[in-house]
């Protein structure tokens, strides 16, 4: 093995250790028996996982976050897929402008989107509600669906759809039988990113938090500011587990490699 290969191996291992170690520390702390977060831990216990289920706001907000993630993802797909299909094939300058506009939430500070949306939606009468949260989360999830679906669709030769239509298929049949199967990896990747973006979002959800609409990150922040126990570490471990499970399921269904190649 050459020296440069050894150096590359060392760098790669060091990089992964640097990335994974902080997460590993949080996971280990979630199993501590101590009443405070400190590393190394004095002993092992599952009591902080039990605490998650004892503290009602954690569970209520987890349910809200899951619902919100699903609603925002579905809405993003309903709006984003047609937009991506049209904009991918359009040639006008307007199409570029609209694409940039739809992707703009990616480049704006989330806290600005949250603050501005609170005032805008309150003026429209939606106020602090799940509907408002769903609208704003859809806005921030939309770019992920548009970006991934567009990337996949651009790689699909128009000839496939043209051939279907020449053979007599209607637009709807062409979409259902030809386009949809071809863009499915893009939809899956976009939906996954969209759900995880919504599920982890704090800055936007923060402004729409109430007893009925608090999401898990908002409750975690409120808890952390005035409580010192490691239940947040336990909750983070469960969230990590959820993300890993989502990725594994996506991999089994569509193949992570196919998704990443497509995007």
């Amino acid at each position, binding site marked *: 093995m050459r020296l440069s290969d050894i150096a590359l191996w060392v760098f790669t291992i060091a990089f992964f250790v640097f990335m994974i170690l902080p997460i590993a520390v949080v996971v280990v702390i979630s199993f501590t028996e101590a009443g*405070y977060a400190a590393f190394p831990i004095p002993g092992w216990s599952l009591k902080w996982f039990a605490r998650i289920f004892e503290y009602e706001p954690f569970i209520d907000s987890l349910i809200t976050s899951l619902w919100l993630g699903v609603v925002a993802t579905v809405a993003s797909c309903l709006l984003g897929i047609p937009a991506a299909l049209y904009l991918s094939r359009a040639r006008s300058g307007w199409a570029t402008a609209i694409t940039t506009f739809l992707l703009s939430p990616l480049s704006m500070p989330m806290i600005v989107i949250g603050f501005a949306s609170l005032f805008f939606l309150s003026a429209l*009468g939606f106020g602090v*509600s799940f*509907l408002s949260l*769903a609208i704003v989360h859809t806005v921030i999830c939309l770019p992920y669906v548009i970006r991934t679906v567009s990337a996949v669709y651009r790689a699909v030769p128009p000839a496939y759809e043209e051939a279907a239509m020449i053979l007599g298929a209607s637009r709807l049949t062409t979409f259902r039988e030809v386009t949809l199967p071809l863009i499915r990896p893009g939809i899956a990747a976009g939906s996954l990113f969209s759900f995880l973006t919504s599920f982890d979002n704090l800055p936007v959800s923060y402004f729409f938090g109430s*007893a009925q609409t608090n999401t898990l990150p908002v409750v975690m*922040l409120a808890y952390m500011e*005035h409580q*010192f126990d490691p239940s947040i570490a336990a909750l983070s471990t469960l969230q990590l587990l959820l993300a890993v499970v989502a990725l594994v399921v996506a991999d089994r269904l569509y193949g992570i490699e196919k998704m990443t190649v497509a995007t």
Partner: protein
Amino acid sequence: MTMNRRRFLGTTGATTALLGLSGLPLRAQGGTLNVTAYGGVWEQAIRECFVAPFEEKTGASATVSLGGPAQWLAQVEASPEQPPLDVLIMSPDLAVLAAEGDLMDDFTTEKLPNLQYIPQEFTDACLGKGTYFDYGVGGITYNKQIVSEPPRSFADFVERVSSGEFIASVPSISYGPTTVFFLWALNNALGGDVDNVDPFFEAMAKMKDNLVFWAGPNDFFNHLASGEADLGIYFDGRTWNHVDEGVDWIDFINPEEGGAMTAVAIQKPKNASDLAWDYLNEVLDAGNQAKFAEILNYGVTNTQVEYSEKLASRVTPLAEANLPPYADIARVRNEWIDRWNREIGM
């Protein structure tokens, strides 16, 4: 498009589900009060000490919204005619801001009989549109296993940290209350005032090689637990909470000059439900406050409260704490932050 039975049921179901989830925009409703609380033990104490007696006496119900003052104030500002919250828990500086913005109702003893037991200066500090109900004091928390002779005053703290005897963990400017319980308090102790913060920045320049900064209260504890710092500037109540959780190696000192009182204010937004007055009166009740103090290890403001023996030895008496001039600090806060960013940077 024709609307067949299946499509009608599907559309109706989806709409109902969405509206059901939304609960429609949150509004102050007749028999339900929307109150606020910080998370964790705070929320549980609010439910136990204030919400439960309120519900018992009025027959109304209250929902508790978790979060923070900036979030709640923004929500009220966005809908001042129909505020989504009926009672706000506020930091003193935002309480002043909300009062100056004419977003809050006046507090009077006619509406709140228990207000007569709260020192007038706390209501004045909220410009008459709120009052303080709970307070902590910022002082010196130290690791007993390392620091056998802790500094007893802010001046002593500065000297001994400057000389390298201790590594101190102090709050960074990214933590909201820093300008009050650290900057103002230390500056005040060293002879400065709101319009002259040179003593504070000179002290920081002297200590700079022996300081680490905490961005959130949990960081401070980690600094002490990991040995990164020996002592630092922290709150009395939080220190006692750590002790009660089994951390037997930390202790707290209120500096001789007096630490800054960091209070928690309560306010009622204009146009919020009148039921809020009943709830607020429960918050100011001596018995309820005593119970609240026992859970949180913080002082409370009703002068009729009698603390348990354990808590009496922990709570910093009101007379030994300094009430910061929050309205004056709000006027110069941006200048202080700008100077901090230029000279300290953390």
